[in-house]
Structure formats: structure tokens, C-alpha cells
């Protein structure tokens, strides 16, 4: 049975060019990149070259790039690191529908004595800039709002939110750009902290970065060690960090085509879904092109199992919460019954034919179990 992968928001297949470079590096070098003999220095220089390239691709400077194990770690470092660096400021603003690593960091701080305002999305699935403005307080240390929501695909007006935070407060603005990068143009103007993962853009798991503008003080989560400007102790995973540059370059180079391709698939999908009266589309009309959240009369667990039987891989919600028995914060915040919702996501490797096969299966399953 030919499998159909429709869960690209969860992770993507690494680009063959990335795998090749990574394998080469692993084979050629194993020294510690902080060692002072030639091999160590050479590896260090390559890693710093990669850092420069990542920086220039994102329009920041090299010292503002912190390599991490991915967006979850970057989110944790941004939020806790920023709060700990400003112990006198005890208020944070975020939204109820952030990724679990943001939500988790915020609730951890809440337990440690910080006050957190959790904004709710409007009916379009977006966080209103006005709501951010109203929540700002003199002691707000950080505002963290994601660029693109990972379960709905709604795109926040990050430009306006960042501008409000910059101009109307002394708080830092953190943005989880994981689901936006490589999908839509991302401009980091006025964004103090930004996190992303490599594996969502055809890179490797365990790799990502936090962009930290130079004026933002942070406390490390892993202290000791001179790596990453003292913000992340531990021997650098130099080969992984080096290939992040290529991963990001390829993703950004292909972004316009990727977006156009995904938009075409989304149109096909939405058109097909219109033929199934039992299906409601949860994603906003102006959402990201590569993700559609939809609800059916069939319980999502049943639907997932049935699709799985036909070799079609989709998720019912954020994969980072897939083994928990709690309702989805994201969907319930929108008044959507999360027991009946699934998330279909695709990218440049998917075809129209696969979308049609999915909708065909969907129709059959709804007929049978709906």
C-alpha cells in the first residue's frame, strides 16, 4: 500500500541535500568544536560561518543566533530566560493557543510567582493586536504570540503586535515562527526573540535556533559552558548546527514556490470538502496554505484509525499533545469540538492526486461511521 503523508506540520522529510551534508560532516569530524588545535578551530569556524549565514538569511547579526535543539527549547529559553533576567517584572502576556512549549513555560513561571495573561483568539482564530495592547502593564516582561497557529493555520498580525509592544511598552516580544518559516515571508522587524525548528522545514530533528536581538538580556537554562555565548552550556552539536544553514537557505529559496504549490493543493482540498456536507472547515479562509483543520461527525480517533488503515497519515491535533488525554486548548478556545477535528497538512512533496485519494477515503469513512 502506498502511504500518503499529510502531517507535514508535525514534521517533514529531511531534504536529501541536508542528509548528505550531515552524513559527510559526521564522517569527517568528531572533535570538540571548542578545542584549540587545528581540527577544533576548523570545525568552530565552520559552525560560526553557518551562524553567520543563518543570521544573514534572517536579516540579523551572527551573535544574535543561538543554536538550540529545536523550537521547544528555543521557546523555553526565550520565555524563562527573559523572565529570569528581569526578576522585578512579574507579568507575561501570551495566548491560550500557543504551542505547548510556550504554554508550558508560561505556566511554569506562573507557579513560580509570575502573573500570566492568556489572550483568546477571535472568531477568525487570530490574536487581536488591540487585545495585546489592553493587556500590557508597566511590569510586563514579555509578550509571546505565535506567528502561525499550528492547529488552525491562522496567521497573526505579528507586524502590528510587535509594533505595539515595541512602541507602547518596555516588554520584549517573542514570536514562535516555526509554522511560518518557509511557508510565508517572515520579517523579524521589532521582534526581540524568535524561535524555529529545522525539522519543520525539511531539516533534521534536534536542531533549531533562537534569534535573540542583542539588546535582550537572557538567563541561560543550561548554565556553565561558554557555548552559544554562555546561554546554552554543553558541547556543541557542530555538524547539526552547520547543516541548519543549508536547511534554512533551501527552505527560504523555495518558499515562494512552496507557498504557491500548497495554495493549489488547499484549493483542491477545500473544493472537494464542499462536496461533503457533513464536514466543517475550522481553519480561517485567510489561513496558511499548507494546513486545513476540519471537523466531521466521526470521532477523530476513529477517523484517524480508519485513515491509517488506508495508509493515510494525518493528526487529530498538535502532535506534541497527542498522547495526553486533555482536550486541545487551541480548538476548545475557538469553541470547536476537539473530539471531532482532524488536521490535514501537506507540502511540496504532496500531489493533487494524494489530496483526492484522501477526500475519497474521507467520504467513505463518514458514510460508514458517521
Amino acid at each position, binding site marked *: 500500500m502506498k502511504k500518503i503523508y499529510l502531517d507535514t506540520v508535525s514534521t517533514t522529510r529531511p531534504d536529501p541535500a541536508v542528509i548528505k551534508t550531515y552524513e559527510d*560532516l559526521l564522517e569527517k569530524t568528531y572533535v570538540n568544536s571548542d578545542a584549540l588545535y587545528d581540527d577544533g578551530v576548523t570545525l568552530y569556524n565552520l559552525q560560526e*560561518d*553557518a551562524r553567520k549565514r543563518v543570521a544573514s538569511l534572517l536579516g540579523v547579526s551572527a551573535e544574535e543566533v543561538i543554536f538550540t535543539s529545536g523550537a521547544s527549547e528555543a521557546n523555553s529559553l526565550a520565555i524563562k530566560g527573559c523572565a529570569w533576567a528581569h526578576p522585578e517584572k512579574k507579568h507575561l502576556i501570551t495566548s491560550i493557543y500557543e504551542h505547548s512549549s510556550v504554554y508550558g513555560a508560561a505556566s511554569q513561571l506562573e507557579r513560580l510567582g509570575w502573573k500570566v495573561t492568556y489572550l483568546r483568539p477571535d472568531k477568525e482564530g487570530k490574536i487581536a493586536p488591540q487585545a495585546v495592547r489592553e493587556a500590557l502593564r508597566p511590569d510586563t516582561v514579555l509578550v509571546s504570540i505565535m506567528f502561525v497557529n499550528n492547529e488552525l493555520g491562522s496567521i497573526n498580525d505579528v507586524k502590528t503586535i510587535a509594533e505595539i509592544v515595541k512602541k507602547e511598552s518596555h516588554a520584549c516580544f517573542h514570536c514562535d515562527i516555526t509554522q511560518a518559516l518557509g511557508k510565508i515571508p517572515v520579517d523579524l522587524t521589532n521582534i526581540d526573540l524568535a524561535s524555529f525548528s529545522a525539522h519543520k522545514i525539511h531539516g533534521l530533528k534536534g536542531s533549531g535556533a533562537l534569534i535573540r536581538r542583542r539588546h535582550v538580556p537572557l538567563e541561560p537554562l543550561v548554565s556553565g559552558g561558554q557555548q552559544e555565548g554562555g546561554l546554552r552550556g554543553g558541547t556543541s552539536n557542530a555538524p547539526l548546527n*552547520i*547543516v541548519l*544553514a543549508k536547511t534554512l537557505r533551501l527552505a527560504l529559496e523555495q518558499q515562494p514556490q512552496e507557498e504557491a504549490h500548497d495554495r493549489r493543493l488547499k484549493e483542491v482540498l477545500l473544493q472537494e470538502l464542499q462536496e461533503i456536507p457533513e464536514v466543517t472547515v475550522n481553519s480561517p479562509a485567510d489561513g496558511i496554505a499548507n494546513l486545513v483543520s476540519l471537523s466531521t461527525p466521526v470521532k477523530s480517533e476513529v477517523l484517524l484509525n480508519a485513515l491509517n488503515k488506508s495508509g493515510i497519515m494525518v493528526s487529530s491535533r498538535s502532535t506534541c499533545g497527542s498522547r495526553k488525554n486533555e482536550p486541545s486548548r487551541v480548538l476548545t478556545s475557538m469553541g470547536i469540538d476537539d473530539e471531532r477535528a482532524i488536521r490535514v497538512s501537506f507540502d511540496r512533496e504532496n500531489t493533487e492526486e494524494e489530496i483526492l485519494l484522501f477526500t475519497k477515503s474521507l467520504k467513505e469513512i463518514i458514510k460508514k461511521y458517521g
Partner: protein
Amino acid sequence: MDNVIYDYIVIRYGELSTKGRNRKDFINCLHANIRRVLKPFPALTYEKFYDGMYIHLNGEEYQAVAEKLKKVFGYAYFAGAIRVPSDLDAIKEAAYKIALSRPYKTFKVNAHRNDKSFPMTSDTINRSVAGHLLANTELKVNVHEPDLMLYIFVKKDATYVMDEKVQGPKGYPVGINHKALLMISGGIDSPVAGYVTMKRGMRLECVHFASQPYTSEQALDKVKELLRILSEYQGEIILHVIPFTELQMQIYRHADESYAITLLRRMMYRIADRIAKKRNILTIVNGESVGQVASQTLESMSVIGSVCDTMILRPLCMADKLEIIDQAVKIGTYETSILPYEDCCTIFAPKNPVTKPKAEKCERYEARFDYEKLIEECLANDEIVHISFDDKKDTEELF
């Protein structure tokens, strides 16, 4: 988002064209340099005219070509252009395209009619094109501070419509004024001295003194990286790496510590002098600036420079440190220069270096050991390295 629509680049020479009988040499040298930096773009074709040249992009990316051109000395400015037949309707159409290519709000037309057989005067071209833009776009005229200065260059065979003149780094084409030997340490000053030397049309050859293992491989790599940055302006640079440790040790053994740097510098000049003569180089250049450190007082410079009869040029001798730093930042060498590796002047730096050295005293110290033999050894072990801007290619595939 800017939408680049040029199919040509027009380069004008400016200062160069005033150079009387040498003009032909200057132009040939400039052309060769332009073609050298644009080698990575094989589709380009070139066409000369009296005061400049046209480069037909033939599909090559304007921005990438422009970045390379900014590293060529010797012309006044260049501009991306749309080439059309010398026909009013075609000119209007090109002007319209350019006006819409960026978010311009105001404009002024500046036509120049080289071809006097063209049936309209410059002024009537201006009015006619402006009228076309006013009627067909939202743009307004502003003759004092326009966003868009639309240049129209009418020639017999074709007309070039341009919006932005990009100033070149000026100076003379590298190679027109013979060669210079740059003494490069790895600090902030010497790369800047090298830059202004190339800008005056001299081709650089460089000498670096390495005292390994007291200085590290990284210190040498840093010098190579600095030269790699500079090599974008002239093409390949030859670097002489002189193993200096033995000579340096002998100086410390035989002279008073306060005179060590003075003697060290005298030895460096002697070696540079020999390299210059051997390589048919007419001048030695370095980054010395009057008063900056003990070895750069007038007394020091005079005692040190007297060992060498090749002409010494010190292009930064009257510049302030901050001016030099500004320029280093501008040419992109600063970040590399400040990497913290020791060079042969900073290892064993004397606590109280002499600021008013006496020539007789230097000679007395130097008489204590056979430095001639050591200099010969240095020259015999001169390691010649060829450095060019594309050297990093071997790791490029990683990214």
C-alpha cells in the same frame, strides 16, 4: 518589494577620462579589472563607448553583478538601465516601467541627448516623458528632491533609461600605478593602508612576519582572511610569510628590552626592502600612523625607516585611529582585525618601549649578532601564498 527590470548596466568613467595621453592605458586596465570581477557571470557582454561602457546582462542577475562592480576602483558611477531604440514611444514605455518598479512617489526627468539628430531637445524629451508618467501613474513631479531621478541617455543607436546612479569606490584602476609591498600584521591599520593603496591604482603584494609557535596558526589565518577580503578589489594577492622566530629571539637575547620593538621593526624593513627589490616593487606600504604607539613616533619612524632605501609610503600616517576604524568597518576588515590573536609585535611586548630611539644605539645592539645571516635565512624560508576571494569555495558546499 523592488522589482529589478534592467537589461543593461551603464558605467561612466568620470575622473579617469581627464587623464590625457594615458587614457587608453587607464581604460584598458579598468576594463580588464571589470571583466575579472565579473568572470562568475559568463552571459555578460560588453560594449565600450567614449566615456564608459555598457554591460548587457543577458539574463544575469543585476543585483549580484552590481555588488561585484562596487569593488572595482577607477570609474565614477554605474546604473542599471533599460535599453530601447531611440524612439520617443519606446523611451516613454521604459520610463513607465522604471517608475513602477519601486514604490516611488515623486520624480524628475533628466534627459541627455548625445545624438543631436534626435528630433527633440533634451528639454522637450523631459516634458514629454514627464507628461506620460503624470497621465499614467500616481507619481507627482518634484524637481528639488525627487524619489526617482529618471536619467535618459539618448544615443544614436539606442537610448538608456536609468533611475539610480550607484557611486563607485572611485580611485584609479588597480594595476595602473605599479606595485606596492604591504607590511601586514593582522591589526586594524594595515588592511586599511592596503585598501587605500589599491585605490591609488597600485597592485598589492604583502609580507607578514610570523613567529610560530609564539604566534598561532590562527593569527596567520586571520591575515589570510584579511587579504581574502582585500583581494576582491584586485584579484589574487601574493603573500610572503616570513618565519621570524629565530631573528626575534636573537634580538631579545642581544638588546635591551626597551629597544626590542625598534630593532624588530628595523629587521622587518630590511627584509621588506629585499623582497621589494627582488620582486621589482617600487614602494613599501604600511599602516603606521604618527604617534600611535612607541614605534610610530617621528623619532622611531625615522630611526626604523633609515635601514631601507626603498621608498616607504605610510598612507595612514596623518589619520586618527577612529577614522581608520570607520574605514575598516566600511571595507569589511574590522571584524576580522579585532580577533584576539597575538602577532609578533605583541608577544613579549616590552613594558617600557623606547619612544626616542637613537640610531647609534640600534647599531651597537645589532653589531652583537650576525643578523645578516638570519635575514638571509628568513628570505630563504619565505613561504609564498596566493590568496584570492574565491578561496573559501571548498567549504561552500556545506552551506
